[in-house]
């Protein structure tokens, strides 16, 4: 299990950010290589992410759902479950958002197996950290 903490700031009201992070159609494309394949409910979607590794790429396909939400506290947990397309690996994560005025904190707890994990935990942490930092930058303009 890899756990990472990040924050973002976009000077937008909490209600605005709350609505944005729960809108999977807006949120998922903020992850580099991520796209919504199909909406399966108000709080869930089939999605995939393509991670470019130089010439080669890996695609993970699965589901994203709002697993927990506390509207009063502006806290939500998005649960990602995915499998590597054409491979044996999987990538699952609970991404917890804790919003405050003008931004928020993100706690990610991820489990990754297969080819990606075989590069070692240090590499997984570096790549995941880069992915989430890029995600937080996009949240600044969401």
């Amino acid at each position, binding site marked *: 299990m890899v756990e990472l903490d990040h924050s973002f700031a976009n000077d937008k009201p909490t209600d605005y950010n709350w609505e944005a992070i729960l809108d999977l159609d807006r949120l998922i494309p903020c992850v*580099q290589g991520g796209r919504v394949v199909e909406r399966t409910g108000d709080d869930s979607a089939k999605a995939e992410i393509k*991670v*470019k*590794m*130089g*010439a*080669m790429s890996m695609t993970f396909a699965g589901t994203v759902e709002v697993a927990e939400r506390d509207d009063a506290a502006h806290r939500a947990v998005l649960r990602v479950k995915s499998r590597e397309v054409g491979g044996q690996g999987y990538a699952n994560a609970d991404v917890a958002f804790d919003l405050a005025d003008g931004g928020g904190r993100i706690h990610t707890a991820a489990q990754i197996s297969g*080819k990606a994990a*075989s*590069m*070692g935990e*240090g*590499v997984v942490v*570096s*790549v995941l*950290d*880069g*992915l989430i*930092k*890029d995600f937080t930058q996009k949240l600044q303009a969401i």
Partner: protein
Amino acid sequence: MAIAPGHYTLGPDDATLTVRTGKAGAASKAGHNLRIEVTSWRATIDVAGDAGQTAMALTADPRSLRVREGHGGMQALGDDDKASIEETIDDEVLEGAGIEFRSRRVAAASDGTLSVEGDLDLAGRSHPVAFDLVAGDGGRVTASARIRQTDWGIKPYSALFGTLKVVDEVDVEIDGTLPA
């Protein structure tokens, strides 16, 4: 061994022009060290009795780089992967800008090796390079230079949020036989 005075031309029919790149970064395990061949180029060597009058020039098609080999990755490079790298070289690295080298100064060592200094145009910028042109038996000539991409304003390719990078320094080699 010294090259006899005369006018020589070299190209893909009599020589190979190779670029070798390395990989770096936390996720370098995922990338490959590449051997890339330039498939369309032409060099002229005008060897004078006085080495000071010797001149060398080379032009190469920036869109003619072909990935011949990749090693050190997690899995072998397929034809699609090689084509993808070539596209990246065309679109993001060399961007189709002309490649040209002109010597400025050539000096001969006692064993006939020519020390060549000149300017290389790459990615729209010119920068000095220096290398030795070594002549061997049967007209064989070899030369190699290590160049730094950033000297030409090229940002070395990176992926995976900067955790997989091409090393700034790349090796360029010529190995061929001067036509008799």
